[in-house]
């Protein structure tokens, strides 16, 4: 019986250590996940904090200066809740509607890096970074998915920074 107790103890120790790792890292390295509207509603409270924001890319606003390099573009609010997306007719439709909705909340994004391959109109951008004092979102990392076609096997392109 002593043997069994030892193993239960060792197992619990490992599990506890892993739980600690998960909880502490969720506090320190995980990002708040917000929509454009939520981000703007939070305002100063999240300024400078690491957050993840998702939105639909407005193709006409993409400006790329390769000499810096820096990409700026505007994203439009899309719902964060998958249920809501589903009810509105699927991701492709939600993204399409968003870019054509002049009243939806918008956010200007500054990404000082190479222009990602998939950055294009009606793509869904998931951006990690901070809301700056200038009201622009300064992205450290931009993940993109393009829902219109070929969604199956090119889920995203990761741009590490």
């Amino acid at each position: 019986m002593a043997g069994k107790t030892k193993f239960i103890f060792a197992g619990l120790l490992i599990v506890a250590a892993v739980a600690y790792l998960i909880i502490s890292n969720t506090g320190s390295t995980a990002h708040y996940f917000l929509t454009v509207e939520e981000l703007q509603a939070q305002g100063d409270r999240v300024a400078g904090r690491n957050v993840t924001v998702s939105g639909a890319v407005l193709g006409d606003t993409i400006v790329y200066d390769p000499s810096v390099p820096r990409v700026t573009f505007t994203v439009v609010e899309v719902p964060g809740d998958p249920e809501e997306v589903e009810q509105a007719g699927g991701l492709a439709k939600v993204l399409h509607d968003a870019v054509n909705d002049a009243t939806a909340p918008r956010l200007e994004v500054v990404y000082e890096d190479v222009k990602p391959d998939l950055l294009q109109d009606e793509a869904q951008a998931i951006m990690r970074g901070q809301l700056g004092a200038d009201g622009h979102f300064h992205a450290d990392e931009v993940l993109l998915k393009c829902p219109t076609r070929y969604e199956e096997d090119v889920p995203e392109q990761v741009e590490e920074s």
Partner: protein
Amino acid sequence: MLAEIGSILTGLALAVALYAAGAAFWSIHRSDSRWAQSARNGVYAATGLLGVAFLLLLAAFLNDQFQIKYVAEHSSRALPLYLKASAVWAGQEGSLLLWSFLQALFTALVVRSSGGGSPLKGDAARRPYWATVFLSLITAFFTGVTLFLSNPFAQMATVPADGQGMNPLLRHPGMIFHPPAMYLGYVGLAVPFAFALAALVTRQVDDWPTVTRRWTLAAWLFLGIGLLLGMRWSYDVLGWGGYWGWDPVENAGLMPWLTATALLHATVMQEQRGGFRWWNLLLVVLSFELVMFGTFTTRSGMIQSVHAFARSDLGLYFLAAIIVTLVGSVALIVKRRSLLADPRPPAEILSRDGMFLLTLILFLTITGSVFIGSVLPTLTNVISDQSFEAGTEWFDRVTGPQFGLLLLLMGVCPLLGQAAAALKRLRARGWPALIGALLVPGAAALSGLTQPISLVAFALVGLAGATTLAEYIRDTAARSRSRKENPLLSLWQLFGRNRRKYGGYLVHTGIILMGLGIIGTRMYSFDTLATLSPGESVDVKGYTLTYEDFAQESVADHMNTTASLSVSRNGKYLTTLQPSIDQYPAFVDQTASIPALRARLREDLYIILAGWDQNGTVVTFKVFINSLASFLWVGGLIFLVGGAVALWPATQGARLPVPEARRRTIRTTVGVAVGSLVLLAAVMAMWGTGTGGRAGEQGGAEAAGRPRVGQAAPDFTLDLLDGSTLSLADLDGKVTVINFWATWCAPCEDELPDFQAVWNEYQEQNVGFIGIAIQEAAEQAEVEEMVSRIGITYPIGMDSDEAIFPTYGVTGVPETFVVDAEGNVAYTHVGPASADELRAELDSLFE
């Protein structure tokens, strides 16, 4: 027509698979071998029907049958034949058809290999029939999903003239083999799962892991190949300098591989000592459910934060299947719990058994961590109403220490025997491990990798590596001594005798090497941006990158833009790298970056073309230095070979009847041939043609332009002012400075005194200077006047008939080329060069 037949075949396959499940069940119920035979035939028939359906879809792709929606969406007329063929599984519908077919094929192989034993006699004989029931149901599930929810044969009302083509990012050998390899792995894991359930139903739980070990091993190996190919694709094509981003789809493939790895270890324990029965059942159920879960999450939109798989109802059906199979399996396990007691539970942690148990726990906690990370946004949303998302940092920090502990166990485990003698053995055999634990971090530190945490990780790698190596050496030496064999022969014999053990060690070796690569790339990778004009250089971590050339070209359906960089280190030319970007106007202007790579053991130099202005007068590059990245791929290759060795059929039973022995030989030969082909394909996909975009061409083709650094300087014969001639070949073996100038050029006049000064200093050494004035013959007097005014004493000639300067691509004066003793261009100056620059360059070439 083709489409209708395809749908009908799929429908028939569904009916036949259901029939096979029913017939197998009935044969058990009635103990009737005729029903059993009928079930077997049903399984074969379903395989045949799905196989033909798959071939029809393939034919539809090869013949551009664009009335079929799936074909129109994933192929186009212009696509090369091999890409048309691989487009069959480029989307969800075709993938599911392939999955269904492979599931049916594996079921057929299982049925075949379990032989035609009568189901009448006892539980042991019934077990394979139960497995057939479960496998046929799984086949039916996938076939049904394919037919009703995701039919690849669905047609469109209007036939488009051409298809939409294949996404450029998928046009890579890695992506052609990656999906089938993953599906083979997923499908393979269903076999041990079905056998485990069958074992529980029939109460024959002793040896099911052994019976299905080869299936588990094969599935695990295919998953490994799939993951490696995916990583290589990411590295070669996605152009972000990395290979693993912890994205949910990657995680969905990784989790079943982790549990399958654990299952293989637990199988050893159940086989050797009858224990770990709970563990085996737990792990096989988990592996199967994680395969289903991966499909569910990626299709359901549940992990909406990062994933773009089209949300479809498919997810709901997979969720239902997960719930049914999970509840069923758990209920069966609980019902049969009395059979699952461990006869000799491990007593000491510091024993081989104890270490195996800890290993299994670690595999579970790692899988659990990855799982939690994947669903973190949903999870935190439910708990706290706030969504948190796990980035790569989260995953690295959470799983890193666990993988480190796993390496430690890998290093210590082979040193331990049974509990009683464990400590003694550890003392006797532990010293190579200690040496390794010091040697590897020492070598890493010497080569500049000195972060404390990474040194700990390197020590673990060294410990595990040294232990593995010591095992080989000890066993080889022992055999060699006792049999008086050549040690090499002994090593070969060891592999032949106990493929499983030594294949396993080889897998460990591969994993350890990959560990080196992971630590290096994760902790030391460096990247920077450089914006350069033609001829301009930048220093990155000891490399000097000079932007040489820019070219744009329209190719088939895309525009290719390529920039060339010459790479040198300490003045020595290494290679020319040509990163490029393909722009596809047909794909909403999608671009595909093709990185250029110079891979060496110490580090990879990985360059992406980031942007340019119209004519390439200013170009931006993103430069990555990926430390130890090669170890990842070398380790991956060794890992695959090790897996293949372990899977190789053992040559047992010398006393087989002749026909049986002959059949076995044929089977083995076929198996070996197929296995080698798959491995070869994987290797080629990873290290073959690829799209690495590396180039190192010399001279020849580039003769029209300026010779690049590292290329041979074009030879010439120059008429000197004094009436004699001088050839570059005359100066062979000397470091030569060639200066193009003209009297009307003010910057030339400014730099000539510097050249003369350097000539004065260096002329005693092995140096040649040549001045070439690009002027009309009539202007010789002016040239002579300037030469004497400045006091130039090195040979000066005139290129009056314009024979020389075009071969050097000279477009203006002054331009200067410094040629090394081997006759290759070492430095170029477009515009004036200073005395200091020249001295530095000459000094570097004399070193």
